């Protein structure tokens, strides 16, 4: 089964290369969708292979890549990356389908999305630090071209901001990883081999000595905070998504907080448990502020894509709160937040694009009474929103329940903050839903959903509901790995 992991990661890139070899439109589209479906099916098989009772024997693929630098091609699917990996592999086929009929440079957008999927999945599954920076540094490149070619007015500034921030993040991560690599003898990039060996090590920069726990952990955390992004370094994400088609916005978000939070959890808890332990309050604070900021900005939103960004800020905040608990339930809840919000945001993004395609606007105040002509779209969106605010029967409910349990054990006050955020968000979303879907129909009659659009929406709705009713396989898949990691060096 371990040989399936490279297929999961590289099937999309192989698809992109095949597109170059044969430029016929039908071939290109078929290859693109097949590549992402292969990746999604592989993710499903890997998920089914994870034995919840045996967190040690997870699918792992390790071969030497550059032996002289101890660089391994090491990929693993375990409880720490299972849910974001599943969400990414699941959503990308629908991203390809949503861009099925793009009139301008369709082959380009498909190829870039495929490369982006490889980079995201690679970053999620890497257990070698070199491979991790390799994939993390690769992510912004397709994103830059996606946004600067297919974006709207003002995309130049937005994509430039994104790439500048990403380059700073990459440099910070690179330096952090180099310091770790050269701080230990024998040198290695494998996270498993580095575990528990960084305590008490020091590194010098310009003659000033730092503890490895401070400098490397600080550099890596800074890089991931930029990439997530969390408040106050989140501006690039908003400006980019507001100037890109919603589908590219969804891809941008998938490349953002799910990857950053997953990588932080792995590196933080496996390599720097003491540092994480001493900064739990800080993490919790960052999570709360990011969630509150997301809520406040959500209240101002009048743009469908802006709502997408604010949602993602709230999701980032909540997932960081889960990581900051340092407790099993909180960490599992954090992973569930990543999964449920990613799927919910994808549905919202696709719905936004469907509405924009018909009404040529992303502004909520210009849309009204859509339910009358597009009831299926209305129901799908409603379920996505329900998932987002944690209504029972959706995976969102499970996520918030787990998170709340973990947070309560950490500090009961966090529950109050979460409840306030959830109430405000629910109220706003009901208002937005009423504005767009209910009420008097202002806009001209919108055409019914096509078969392709239904294919994009319904399976994701199905995932939200099914996992909402049967969450235990997912919970078990994540729980044992989290327990293993906490047992190795609990930050509490």
């Amino acid at each position, binding site marked *: 089964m371990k040989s399936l992991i490279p297929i999961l990661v590289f099937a999309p890139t192989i698809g992109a290369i095949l597109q170059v070899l044969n430029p016929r439109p039908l071939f290109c589209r078929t290859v693109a969708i097949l590549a992402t479906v292969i990746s999604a099916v592989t993710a499903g098989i890997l998920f089914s292979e994870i034995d919840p009772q045996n967190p040690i024997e997870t699918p792992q693929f390790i071969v*030497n*890549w*550059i*032996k*002289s*630098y101890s660089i391994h091609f090491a990929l693993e699917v375990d409880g720490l990356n299972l849910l974001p990996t599943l969400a990414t592999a699941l959503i990308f086929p629908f991203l390809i389908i949503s861009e099925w009929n793009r009139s*301008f*440079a369709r082959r*380009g957008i498909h190829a870039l999305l495929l490369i982006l999927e490889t980079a995201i999945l690679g970053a999620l599954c890497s257990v070698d630090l*070199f491979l991790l*920076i*390799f*994939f993390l*540094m*690769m992510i912004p*490149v397709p994103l*830059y*071209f996606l946004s*600067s*070619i297919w974006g709207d007015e003002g995309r*130049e500034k937005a*994509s*430039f901001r994104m*790439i*500048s921030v990403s*380059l*700073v993040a*990459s*440099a*910070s991560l*690179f*330096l952090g990883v*180099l*310091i770790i*690599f*050269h701080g230990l003898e024998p*040198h290695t990039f494998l996270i498993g081999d580095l575990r528990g060996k960084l305590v008490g090590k020091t*590194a*010098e*920069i*310009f*003659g000033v000595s730092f503890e490895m726990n401070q400098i490397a952990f600080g550099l890596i955390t800074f890089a991931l905070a930029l990439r997530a992004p969390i408040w106050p370094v989140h501006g690039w994400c908003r400006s980019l998504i507001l100037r890109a088609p919603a589908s590219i916005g969804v891809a941008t978000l998938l490349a953002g907080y799910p990857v950053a939070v997953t990588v932080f959890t792995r590196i933080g808890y496996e390599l720097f448990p003491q540092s994480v332990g001493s900064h739990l309050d800080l993490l919790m604070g960052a999570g709360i502020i990011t969630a509150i900021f997301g809520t406040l900005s959500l209240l101002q939103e009048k743009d469908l894509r802006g709502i997408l960004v604010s949602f993602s800020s709230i999701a980032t905040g909540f997932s960081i709160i889960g990581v900051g608990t340092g407790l099993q339930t909180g960490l599992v809840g954090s992973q569930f937040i990543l999964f449920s919000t990613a799927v919910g945001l994808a549905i919202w993004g696709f719905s936004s694009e469907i509405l924009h395609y018909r009404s040529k606007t992303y502004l909520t105040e210009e849309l009204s009474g859509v339910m009358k002509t597009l009831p299926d779209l209305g129901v799908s969106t409603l379920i996505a929103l329900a998932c987002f605010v944690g209504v029972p029967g959706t995976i969102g409910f499970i996520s918030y329940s787990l998170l709340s349990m973990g947070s309560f054990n950490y500090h009961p006050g966090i529950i109050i903050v979460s409840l306030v955020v959830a109430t405000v968000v629910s109220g706003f979303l009901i208002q937005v839903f009423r504005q767009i879907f209910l009420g008097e129909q202002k806009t001209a009659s919108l055409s019914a959903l096509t078969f392709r659009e239904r294919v994009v929406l319904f399976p994701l709705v199905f995932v939200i509901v099914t996992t909402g009713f049967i969450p235990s396989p997912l919970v078990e898949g994540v729980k044992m790995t989290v327990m293993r990691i906490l047992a190795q060096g609990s930050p509490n």
Partner: protein
Amino acid sequence: MIKELILFLPEVYLILAATGLILGEVGYHGERVRIILPTALISVFGSLVQLLFNYTAGPGRFGHANFINDGFSLFLKTLLLLTALIGLLADRKSQEVSLENRTEHAALILGITALGMLVVSSANWIWIIFLMFSLNVLGSLLLSLKKTDRKAIEASFKGNISAIYSLILTSLAVILFYSVTHEFDLYKIHTAIIEKGISSRIYSVGFSLILIGLGFFGTYFPSQLWAKDSYEGASLPATAFASCLFRITTFGILVRVVVVQFSRESQNPGFWIPINTLNWLPVLSVICGLTLLLSALYVFRQTATRKIFAGVLVLQSGFYLLGLLALDQIGFASILLGLATEIFMIGGLFATLSFFEDRRQKSDDEISLSRSVPEGIALLFFLLCVIGLPPLPGFISKFTLISSAARHQWNGLALVALISFVLVGISAFRWVYPWVYGLRQRQMAFSISWTHRVLLLGLIFPLALFSVFAEPMLNWVSSSVAFPLW
């Protein structure tokens, strides 16, 4: 005697071909233009094949023990021949090089490649090294061979002046060391310094003279100022060729001179330390840091294409100095890997730029990738490679160089290198935006040149192989550095 002559054959082929081209040009000009390229290419291929035979000869000295045949020199010679090959092919496709100048271009490329090969293989007699090195002035003549362009002539003039400075400074160093040790042989100078001991003042002056003198063609601080203007003014193929050739020869000499004359082996095999008289590593680290930072800042504030790429070329030298600072086998191997990657990525980048710029001269329209998408993608490929972004091989070579510094706790320099990476990355993406933006506009496509595409594929293919098979490449490089003559 015959064996020794055989070892010189790669250089002899090139010199004979260059002489033939010049004589042909003097005798008759016109139809012979057609045979310039095949003649030059045959000589380069011949040299490459001959190099393979030289590999089989094993390590040793030849030419009255003044020259060395070892893994390091053979690797550098191979790189120089590949640079010449790419230079000749890129020249052929560029419209900046007029038909009348083709012979001079080809002859100069072959000539200075041969000289460079002699330089990088010469190890014993220090004055031979520096004299040959100064003949790089011929390379700067190449920079002026552009269709009547004042900037190109200025570029060449600056190159000539730099070569003279370089010769003066390195000659002074040779005289200085000879006056103290009475030796020209690198190894004997080293022994004399160790056994007799020389004053740290003479030692440091000599070292500084060599370092600054080599810096003119190595294009590192403080001698790099001429290079940006010259590279900006010259034709694109000449710039790509000359910059790669200068760097290969400079870092070939630097590694050899620094290791043989100014260092001694440490207790760990494969590691060297500066000889006791003076620790020059901090000086080198300052030069490295300033080269990186100043050229990155230069690139950051430029908007003109040629200025940006001139700055990027200078920046590369800063990265190679990181490898030199490590003063060990892995550091030197990372320099060789970087140089090997560079000849393909710089060659490719300038060849694609040349493709677009030539065609822009014909039409007044804004230039963008939509005019020729495959060439545009190739341009982006080479550009991202030069910046050092994954998954392209430029990333692996940058990683090995920065890692060399970090391994010896030069973390501050690694930080400076990464800041340079960020600044140059931002500049490159700022520069590339108008090209990408143009994809949205329907523009008339440029005429396709299949031979140009074959050249680009020929440059992309080895780079892709470097990325995937990084380990065998590194092994080859490491084994080239690990030779018994040091």
